[in-house]
C-alpha cells in the first residue's frame, strides 16, 4: 500500500456548492486547488467547520479536480449536522490529504469496486484513475434503499458498469452487495471496497474464497486523524508492509500488531487484516 507523502496541510477554503443528492446526504464542494493537486484516490481529510464548538470530522475525498475538492457525507450526528449547515461562501478549514489511499500500482485490468452506502464517497477518485488507465471497472453498489444509491449517474458517466443491491429490494437486487460480487463473471483481478465494517468483512470473505486480492478502506472512530494518538487501530499481520515499525509484544510471539487506520490506512489489504 502507498504511504502518505507530504504536503499535508491545513487549508482555509471557501464553500463553492452544496447539494443534497438524497435526503440526509450532502455533497459539499469547496475551493482548494492545492489540496486537489496532491490528493490521491482513497485519501481523506479532516473538516473543521467555522465557529462554535470546533470539531474535526474525517471524510473521504470524493472529488478533486482543478481548484475544487468535494466531500459526500451522511448527516448522522452533531458534527456532520454542522457541516451540512454550510452554504456557498462560508469558510471551511480542511486538513489533508491524509492516509495512504488505494494502491493502483499493479496496473490492474479488471477491477471490481464495492461500495456500501456512503462508502461510495471514497470510490469516485479510484474509479476515475482506473478508467483513465483503461481498466474495466464494475461498480457493485449497495444501500438500504433506492434513494440512498446516490451519484449513480456520475459513476455511469465516468464509464463504469453499475450493479446495485438494496436491503429492501426497492432497486436492483434485494440483499447484500457482496452477493453480487460473488457472482461476478469474469472474475475481476482486483477488488476495492469501502463501506460499513460488516460489509467489508463479507467482502474480505468473498474475495478470499474467490482468490481475488482486495483492498478495503476501513472506518474507525478517529481523534487526531494524523497518527498521533493511536486511537484508531486495527490488528494486522506484523509482516505487512503497513505494519507500524514496532516490535510486536514479546509475550507469546503474536504475529499481530495494531496499525493506525488514519496513518497506515485507511486502506489495507484484506488478507493482511487480523480483525
Amino acid at each position, binding site marked *: 500500500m502507498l504511504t502518505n507523502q507530504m504536503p499535508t496541510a491545513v487549508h482555509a477554503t471557501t464553500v463553492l456548492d452544496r447539494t443534497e443528492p438524497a435526503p440526509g446526504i450532502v455533497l459539499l464542494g469547496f475551493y482548494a486547488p492545492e489540496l486537489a493537486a496532491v490528493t490521491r484516490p482513497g485519501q481523506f481529510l479532516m473538516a473543521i467547520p467555522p465557529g462554535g464548538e470546533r470539531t474535526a470530522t474525517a471524510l473521504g475525498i470524493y472529488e478533486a479536480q482543478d481548484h475544487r475538492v468535494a466531500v459526500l457525507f451522511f448527516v448522522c450526528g452533531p458534527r456532520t449536522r454542522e457541516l451540512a449547515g454550510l452554504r456557498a461562501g462560508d469558510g471551511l478549514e480542511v486538513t489533508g490529504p491524509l492516509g495512504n489511499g488505494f494502491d493502483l500500482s499493479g496496473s490492474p485490468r479488471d477491477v471490481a469496486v464495492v461500495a456500501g452506502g456512503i462508502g461510495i464517497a471514497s470510490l469516485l477518485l479510484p474509479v476515475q484513475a482506473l478508467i483513465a488507465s483503461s481498466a474495466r471497472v464494475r461498480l457493485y453498489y449497495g444501500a438500504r434503499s433506492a434513494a440512498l444509491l446516490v451519484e449513480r449517474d456520475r459513476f455511469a458517466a465516468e464509464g463504469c458498469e453499475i450493479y446495485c443491491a438494496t436491503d429492501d429490494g426497492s432497486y436492483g437486487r434485494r440483499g447484500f452487495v457482496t452477493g453480487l460480487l460473488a457472482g461476478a463473471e469474469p472474475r475481476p483481478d482486483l477488488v476495492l471496497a469501502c463501506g460499513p465494517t460488516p460489509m467489508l468483512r463479507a467482502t474480505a470473505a468473498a474475495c478470499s474464497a474467490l482468490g481475488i486480492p482486495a483492498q478495503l478502506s476501513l472506518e474507525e*472512530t478517529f481523534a487526531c486523524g494524523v497518527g498521533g494518538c493511536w486511537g484508531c487501530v486495527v490488528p494486522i499481520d506484523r509482516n505487512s508492509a503497513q505494519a507500524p515499525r514496532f516490535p510486536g509484544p*514479546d509475550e507469546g510471539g503474536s504475529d499481530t500488531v495494531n496499525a493506525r487506520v488514519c496513518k497506515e490506512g485507511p486502506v489495507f489489504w484484506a488478507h493482511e487484516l487480523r480483525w
Partner: protein
Amino acid sequence: MSGSQAAYAAVDLSVKLGTLELAYPTLMGSGCYGSGEEFAPFADPAKIGGVVLKSVTQRPRLGNRAPRLVATPSGMLNAIGLQNPGIDWYLEHDLAERVPRPWKTIGSVAGFSVDEYAYVTQRLAAQPEIDAIELNVSCPNVAAEGETFACDPKLTGRVVRLVRDTTEKTLIVKLSPNVTDIAAVAREAEDAGADALAVINTVRGMAIDVDTWRPRLGNVTGGLSGPAIRPIAVLAVYEVACAVKIPIVGQGGIETVTDALEFFLAGATAVSIGTANFIDPRIPERIVEGLRAYLGERGLLSIGQIVGQANRGFAGAHRCEGREG
C-alpha cells in the same frame, strides 16, 4: 496599536519547572501529540513550550483492543492501553530518528512496578535529547498497578523516591483525579522529591452501546478527557496548589485561552493541552497569543503574576480548600 503590540511582545511567558526552562507555559499532553512529528506540519513548532512524548514502558505493548475511542458530551473516552514499542526500540528508533525541534522534550514513563519506573526513567533520562521526565503513575487504561500508584499516596511516594535517585533532570509526577483526596497524593509526591506535578490525568469512565449491550471500548473502561472534565481539573489544581509548593502543570479540557487562564489562576505554573490538539493543532499557539494579549492588556509583565490568584484573599470566609467553614 503598534505601541500596545510592542508592550505585548515584552510580556514574559517563560516559566521554570524545576530546572526545566520553557519559553512558553504550554506543554502538549502525553499521548495527545505523538512524538510531535505527526502535528508538526500543522502547527508552528516555535510556538510550543514543550512536548510530553507518548508514555513508554520497559517492554513493547500491543495496547488495548479496538475500539479505543468514544466521543462523549464535550469530551471523549480513550483506552489506548499504553501501546508502545518498549524502551529499547524507542531509544534506538523513535528518539534517535527525531527531527530536532525548538520545543523542550519531556519523556513520559509508565510501568507496572516500582522497579520498571526506575529502570525506564534511568534509560530515558540519560538521553541528551530528553529535557525532563514525566512519571505517568495515573494511566486509567492498564491493568491494576498502573493507576493504583497514583491512587495510593504511600505507593506514589515510594515510586517517586526511587525514580528521583535515577536522574537529576526535572521530574514531573502526573496525578490521577480518581481519588478521594488528591492533595494527599500531591504532598507525598512533593515529599518524595518531585519537581513538579501534572494535574490531572483522565477521569475514569465508560460508555455502553445500547444496540449491542456491550461496552463501547474494547477495554470496557477508559479515560475521560476534554472540556467535560475541565471543572474537575480546575478544582484539582486549586486543591493541589493549596497543598504543595512545587509548580503544577494544569490540564484537562483546555481549548481556549480563557480555559488556560482558569488553570493559571487556580495555581498552575504551566498548562498542558491534550484533546484539543485533535480538533486543531493550532490551538496551542492561539493560546500563547491569547495569554500575551491578556497580560498585555492588563499591564502585567509575566505569566507568573496571575498564577494562583484565585486562591488569594479567601483566608476569611473560605479556607483554601474551598469549603465553607
